[in-house]
C-alpha cells in the first residue's frame, strides 16, 4: 500500500527477453510445496496479464543519496515483439505508463522494446504528470564508451576504423551515428528501411562524413573493424567478418552470438550496460529470477538513465522522440552517472566475463 501513497523517484517499465527468465521467475515465486509449471502452461497466462508493479528498487549514489523506484512488468510476450503485435504491445506499454503515474512515480523509463511508444507521437501522454524517458541516451553512452574502451584495450585507433552500425535509423543507432561521425574513418550504416537509410547517408555526406550504406549486411560486414548492433538480431546473420572485429551486441534480446556464421577471431561483448557500485537492492528480492549477468549490480543503460536523472533530481522528459539524442546529452548523462558511482559495466557475453578486456581495464 505504501507504494501507492508515497511518491516514488522513478518507475522502470520493462519486459522479459526470454521464456527462460519468465519460467524462472514464475516457478521461483510459486510455493515450494506445489509443482513447478512447465513453460507451455506459463505461456498460457503470462501474455494476458495486465502490467503490474513487481518489486521495489533502491539505489545508492556515491554521494550518499538514495533513490527509490519500482519495476513495472508489461507482460509483453517475448515471442510477440515483432511489428505484427505492435498495437497490442503499445496498448500494454500505455497501461504500464498509467500504472506508473498511479503509483506516483516522478519519472518513468521505458526499457527495451517499450521505448517504441515514446519514439512516436507523445500527444496522448500530454495530460499525465509523470515525466517519461526512453533511456536511450545513457544506453547509447554505455555503447559508445564501451567501444572507446575496447579500442584502447586492443590498441585500435577509432579514427582509422570502419564502424558498422546495424539499426542505424533507430533512435540509439542515430545517436551512435551522430556521436561517431567525426570520430571514425568510415561509417557503414545498415537498416531495414532503404529510404530512411539513404536519407541519413545523404545528410551525413553533406556534412563531409565518409559513409556507405546498404540494407544488405553482406556488403558491409567484410569492411567493418567495429560492429555496433542495436537492432533486433532475430533476422540478422553476420558472416565474412574481418579477423579481430569488435562487436558490441546492444540489441534486444542480446543473442547476436547465435547469428554469427564465423565465431573465431571475434571479440563480442554485450553493450549498453552499466554497473552500480554503491548499492542496488530489490524488494522482494527477485534478483535470482530476473538477473543473469556474470557480475553483481549490472543494469541496462535505459534503466540507469531514470536512476541517474532521479539522483540529479532532473525529473524531465530526457530522451524522447527519435533522432533527438545529441553527443552533448550523451556526455552529460555519462558524467552524471560517473558522479553517482555508476560506470560502464565490465565486458561480458553469454559465456561470461570477457577476461582479456577486463584485465586490461
Amino acid at each position: 500500500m505504501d507504494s501507492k501513497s508515497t511518491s516514488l523517484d522513478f518507475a522502470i517499465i520493462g519486459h522479459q527477453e526470454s521464456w527462460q527468465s519468465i519460467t524462472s521467475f514464475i516457478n521461483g515465486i510459486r510455493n515450494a510445496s506445489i509443482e513447478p509449471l512447465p513453460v507451455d502452461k506459463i505461456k498460457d497466462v503470462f501474455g494476458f496479464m495486465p502490467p503490474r508493479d513487481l518489486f521495489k528498487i533502491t539505489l545508492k549514489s556515491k554521494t550518499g543519496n538514495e533513490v527509490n523506484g519500482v519495476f513495472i512488468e508489461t507482460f509483453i510476450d517475448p515471442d510477440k515483439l515483432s511489428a505484427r503485435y505492435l498495437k497490442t504491445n503499445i496498448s500494454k506499454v500505455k497501461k504500464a505508463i498509467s500504472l506508473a503515474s498511479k503509483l506516483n512515480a516522478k519519472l518513468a523509463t521505458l526499457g527495451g522494446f517499450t521505448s517504441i511508444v515514446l519514439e512516436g507521437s507523445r500527444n496522448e501522454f500530454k495530460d499525465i504528470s509523470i515525466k517519461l524517458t526512453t533511456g536511450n541516451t545513457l544506453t547509447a553512452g554505455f555503447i559508445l564508451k564501451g567501444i572507446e574502451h575496447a579500442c584502447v584495450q586492443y590498441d585500435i585507433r577509432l579514427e582509422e576504423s570502419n564502424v558498422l552500425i546495424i539499426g542505424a535509423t533507430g533512435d540509439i543507432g542515430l545517436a551512435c551515428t551522430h556521436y561517431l561521425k567525426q570520430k571514425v574513418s568510415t561509417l557503414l550504416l545498415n537498416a531495414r528501411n532503404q529510404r530512411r537509410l539513404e536519407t541519413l547517408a545523404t545528410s551525413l555526406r553533406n556534412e563531409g562524413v565518409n559513409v556507405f550504406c546498404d540494407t544488405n549486411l553482406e556488403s558491409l560486414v567484410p569492411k567493418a573493424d567495429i560492429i555496433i548492433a542495436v537492432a533486433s538480431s532475430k533476422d540478422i546473420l553476420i558472416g565474412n567478418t574481418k579477423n579481430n572485429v569488435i562487436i558490441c551486441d546492444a540489441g534486444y534480446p542480446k543473442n547476436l552470438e547465435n547469428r554469427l556464421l564465423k565465431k573465431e577471431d571475434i571479440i563480442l561483448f554485450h553493450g549498453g550496460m552499466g554497473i552500480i557500485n554503491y548499492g542496488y537492492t530489490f524488494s522482494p528480492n527477485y534478483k535470482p529470477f530476473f538477473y543473469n549477468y556474470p557480475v553483481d549490480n549490472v543494469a541496462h543503460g535505459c534503466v540507469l538513465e531514470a536512476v541517474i536523472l532521479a539522483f540529479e533530481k532532473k525529473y524531465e522528459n530526457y530522451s524522447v522522440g527519435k533522432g533527438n539524442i545529441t553527443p552533448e546529452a550523451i556526455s552529460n548523462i555519462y558524467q552524471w552517472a560517473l558522479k553517482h558511482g555508476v560506470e560502464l559495466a565490465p565486458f561480458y557475453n553469454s559465456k561470461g566475463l570477457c577476461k582479456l578486456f577486463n584485465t586490461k581495464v
Partner: protein
Amino acid sequence: METLTNNFKSIEEFQVISDVFSQAITGELIGMSNFASLSGTIEDPFEKMEAIEHANGERQHAEGFMAYAKKTGLNININLNGSYWGRIRDVFLSYANKNDFIACLMIQEVMLEAFAVSMYTDVGRVLEDEAQKLFLSIAEEEKEHMDHSTEILRSELKKNPDDFIRKIEIIHYECMTILSEFSARTDLSGHCGVCHGDCMKNSLHHIGLDVVTMRGNALALYAEALDNIGIPGEKSVLWIANLPA
C-alpha cells in the same frame, strides 16, 4: 433435429453452444443463490435490498439464457452440485454462514463476476444475433456489479490494508483455485458435471473460441479487478502465479 438444422451449422456447434448455455445458466443460478445468501450477511437495509435485487438480476439472466435455449432447442443440463460449481458454492456459504459480507462480496462480485464478464464477452463476440446480444448485455450488467463492489472493497482496504490483503489472499486461494482448475486446458479435478459427454473445452474451436484465450482474458480481468481495489501488483502476481494450471 428440425430446430437443430434451422439454428446451427453442425452437430458439434449445437453441442458446444448447448454446453456454453448450460454453464452460463448454472453459473447464474449459483450467483442468484449467492446473492440471496449474501443478503443475510448485510446489516444495512438498503444494501440488503440491493443484494436481493442482484439475486433477482441473476435469476433474470438465467431465465434469459433458458428462454433462448428453449427457443432454439438447445440441450441444457443444469447442475449446481457439480464438482466445481458445488465447491464454489460451498466456499461462498462458509463465509455467508459467518456473516462475512466482505468475503462474500469478494467471491461473488469480484472473482465469479470477473470470469463471467470476461467469458460472456468472449462468447458474445463469436455468437450471432440474439445470442450475441444476450451474452454481451448480461456481461455489461455483471460488470456493473463488479464496479459497485470495487468501491466498497477499496474503502475496506483503506481501513486496514494489511489485514484486508491477508484476508483476500486466503479467499483467493480458496475460490480462485477452483476456478483455475475449472478453466484449465483440461479439468484438473475431473468432469464438471454440466457439460454433455466430454469437456466442451476441446470443442470450443467449433464456435471460434479456445480455452487458453478465454482463461487468459478472465484471469487478466480478475487481475485488473484486484488492481482497481488497490491490491498491490506484487501481491496479485504472486497469488495468480500460485494457482493451479
